[in-house]
């Protein structure tokens, strides 16, 4: 892992340890040093785009956080025990969800790629369903199933379960976010070199030993990347703490409360600033830790196919856990599906088609078209941008790579409510730098496309990080020699990226696109501040239905949303694999 190590050494000389690089990879720093003009131009372009997407709105927020009201809140966060508890709650939630979600994702991916069993396609589909978790749907379904009067907790076991608080949040957030980890691990496991397994096996290691001492260590960047992503997502999530939080207040719900309850934007910004700090910390730690571990497994040398594991010591526990979790996911989503057909889910279970009629013919149909159109614009931009950032971070940049990586991740680390305010502050009025108008108004009802541009920008900002992380994880696995070969044959950096790198990280691109689309379709909290009369957004319609207590309509919306997203994801997959790459799959 010379590349990342150098980066860290460059960025933080104090932390530098002498690189113990394996022979044969010494050449990479030199290659990077003579970066060609294309890379510089590309780097600048990405930096400018990120500045508009993330930098400017976040800067506006920071200035709000350091306004008098915000400073007062920052002071109280440091001094008041109530606020210490909120910060602690947030960290505990992030850590638990990060660990649990990453493990679930790993188990699903491992079962999918390496363990022999029937029904792999079904399992894959099942692991993908939660990425389309419309806000409120899973939490509401979980309350219906496991709440104090839940169909399972009270109906079957007769207990008044209490899922409000940490336990319920961990359950719902882990189940909603683990697909990110699953997609990461799946891509990485598929491109692992089986000859290492074979070598270990030839030396007499058992399957379990191979898993623990060969496979898992090679996946370290995946574990670290997934953990970071889940940690950040769970501490910035808003919808679930609102519905399920109970007395367990976290920073994101506190920030929301400050904005919507106290009418105090500065205080909201100040609370959000506090969310950024742990995110930054975890980010730096994982970066330093991963950079010390070599994980190159895609070398370009011919390799064979990995065999499926049949040993009971691995197969039985993995399949039992995966099976149990799958059953849980199926139950929850069946509740959502069934809820759309019931008069009042959980109270009056009479069957009806009214909710679907309302959604498909009423206000819902315009919302569906608008949301899908905006998400379809945002997804390819976010997907490609994520890969570009990953490539620049891992391969091309030295000093600035940590900064670029972090700025890319910011869009997810800032709680949605606050990002939305940052956007509103920045883009409802024309953007002016030093007296020169740089951009016209992009958000709000008076802007072009009914303010759709700002909504697309938020979608991109929110969905960029998952693709970026997936790209970075897979690039870390690929030996730079493959790209160097292309460069030494005379190809420019840009050509190398398009012809060699992109096909190699195809699965990361596909997962980036998939998440970008799903995330865009289900983003709620930042959109609230950007919706305009001209555009109807599905998630805010769902919120409106939940608000009025019409759960049937909300569940029907969610079902329709899930169907749209899943079918479009399949389409994107097909388009990328069969049309854009024309079956040129370099990954095995």
């Amino acid at each position, binding site marked *: 892992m010379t590349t990342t190590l150098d980066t860290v050494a460059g960025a933080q000389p104090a932390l530098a340890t002498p690189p113990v690089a394996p022979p044969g990879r010494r050449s990479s720093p030199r290659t990077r040093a003579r970066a060609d003009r294309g890379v510089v131009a590309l780097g600048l372009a990405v930096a400018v785009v990120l500045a508009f997407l993330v930098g400017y709105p976040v800067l506006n927020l920071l200035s709000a956080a350091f306004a008098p009201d915000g400073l007062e809140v920052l002071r109280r966060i440091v001094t008041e025990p109530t606020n210490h508890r909120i910060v602690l709650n947030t960290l505990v939630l992030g850590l638990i969800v990060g660990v649990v979600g990453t493990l679930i994702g790993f188990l699903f991916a491992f079962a999918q790629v390496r363990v022999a069993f029937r029904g792999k396609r079904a399992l894959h589909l099942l692991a993908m369903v939660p990425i389309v978790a419309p806000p409120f749907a899973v939490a509401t379904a979980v309350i219906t199933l496991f709440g104090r*009067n839940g169909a399972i907790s009270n109906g079957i076991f007769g207990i008044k379960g209490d899922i409000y608080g940490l336990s319920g949040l961990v359950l719902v957030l882990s189940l909603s976010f683990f697909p990110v980890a699953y997609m990461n691990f799946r891509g990485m496991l598929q491109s692992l070199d089986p000859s290492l397994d074979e070598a270990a096996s030839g030396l007499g290691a058992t399957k379990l030993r191979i898993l623990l001492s060969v496979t898992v260590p090679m996946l370290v960047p995946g574990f670290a990347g997934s953990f970071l992503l889940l940690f950040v997502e769970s501490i910035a999530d808003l919808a679930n703490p609102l519905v399920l939080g109970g007395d367990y207040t976290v920073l994101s*719900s506190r920030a*929301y409360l400050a904005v919507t309850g106290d009418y105090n934007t500065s205080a909201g910004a100040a609370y959000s600033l506090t969310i950024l700090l742990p995110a930054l910390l975890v980010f730096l730690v994982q970066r330093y830790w991963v950079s010390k571990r070599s994980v190159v497994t895609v070398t370009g040398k011919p390799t064979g196919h990995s065999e499926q594991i049949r040993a009971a010591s691995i197969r039985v526990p993995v399949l039992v856990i995966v099976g149990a979790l799958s059953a849980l996911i199926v139950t929850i989503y069946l509740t959502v599906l069934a809820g759309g057909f019931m008069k009042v889910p959980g*109270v009056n279970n009479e069957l009806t088609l009214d909710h679907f009629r309302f959604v498909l013919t009423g206000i819902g149909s315009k919302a569906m078209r608008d949301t899908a159109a905006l998400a379809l614009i945002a997804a390819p931009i976010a997907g490609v941008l994520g890969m570009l950032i990953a490539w620049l971070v891992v391969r091309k940049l030295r000093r600035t790579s940590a900064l670029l990586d972090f700025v890319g991740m910011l869009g997810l680390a800032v709680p949605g409510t606050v990002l939305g305010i940052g956007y509103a502050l920045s883009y409802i009025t024309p953007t002016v730098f030093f007296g020169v108008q740089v951009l016209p108004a992009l958000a709000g009802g008076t802007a072009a496309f*009914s303010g759709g541009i700002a909504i697309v920008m938020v979608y991109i900002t929110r969905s960029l990080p998952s693709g970026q992380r997936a790209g970075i994880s897979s690039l870390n696995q690929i030996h730079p020699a493959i790209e160097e070969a292309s460069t030494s044959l005379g190809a420019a950096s840009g050509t190398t990226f398009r012809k060699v790198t992109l096909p190699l990280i195809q699965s990361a691109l596909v997962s980036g696109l998939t998440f970008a689309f799903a995330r865009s379709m289900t983003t709620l909290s930042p959109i609230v501040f950007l919706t305009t009369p001209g555009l109807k957004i599905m998630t805010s319609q769902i919120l409106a*239905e939940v608000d009025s207590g019409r759960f049937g309509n909300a569940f029907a919306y969610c079902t329709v949303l899930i169907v749209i997203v899943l079918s479009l994801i399949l389409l994107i997959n097909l388009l990328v694999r069969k049309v*854009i790459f024309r079956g040129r799959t370099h990954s095995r």
Partner: protein
Amino acid sequence: MHRRTVPLTLTAAVAVAVLAGCAPSGGQGGADGSSDPVTFICTPQEDWCQLVASEFTSATGIPADYVRLSGGEAVARLSATGDTPEFDAWFGGGAEGHLAADEAGFIEPYTSPNADQIADEYKDADGRWTGVYVGALGFCSNTDVLDEIGADAPESWDDLLDPAFKSNVAMAHPGTSGTAYQALWTEVDLNDGDQDAALDYFGELHSNILQYSKSGSAPGQMAGRGEVATGVIFAQDCQKFINEGFTNLTTTFPEEGTGYEVGAVSLLANARNPEGAKAFIDWTLTAEAQDLAATVGSYSVPTNPDATITDDMVDLDDITLEPVDIDAAGAARNELVARFDSEVAPAPKE
């Protein structure tokens, strides 16, 4: 490269075309050229907002469009736009939200000629806001759960303190919800302005609370699903849940007296279409406009005395209302909520 990027470009182009196709349909107002459209912030539920916009247009010929925002979101969004607001008027939501917007300088006082009909306690003397509907605070109880715990539907604030209700009461957090703040303020009023006594009451109630929800109407849903026995919410919200099919719910009112909210309409400062906005405000105060609410399942009480009171609405004459000084309640809000946060909410439950 061309082979690779063309489909992506195509996708984007198609999507842009779709988007461009949608965009004008939203702003159809400008197309017929008769008059400038009115754009308003709408805080009540979606279908009410929709009906208000379309009925206003058919009554006056002025095209209207809205964005649905909660009170706090509206204030936050208004502060983002500064001097170039996107909106002309703000319809619905508690008067205290309109007052918060006024404090930040977003409201233009306007006294509608139609406001004469509205009772004084439901409008601001300076015309900063005018009431369009009133909602009374009540207890929304699930009769099945009441049977289970062997309690009757609460008839007074003290009934809620009964140990039978342990972990069986839900209310929103006063910091996030105007509904809950109304409850807190009512208790202050009932104790003749003694904030300490009010907080003592909520300190006692704390053991019976299952959770402080974030949204004001959520406790009603929790009661409807049998998560708790009773929720402290506005009576019209409880009635709405009953009509949506939560038929095991019942509404009761505290005999000592209960608080109420006034849903208001106001004119925004620097409106792009102030004349249209004034016409809009005038129209929302008419009986015909206020009668629309009940047709979409919103059962708050209209402020216009000529508007129809349906069976689903509370007859305000039948219950004890505790007069609310909205200005005083708003002024005390930050301090009172902070005290609730530190003195009541963090206490461990018994």
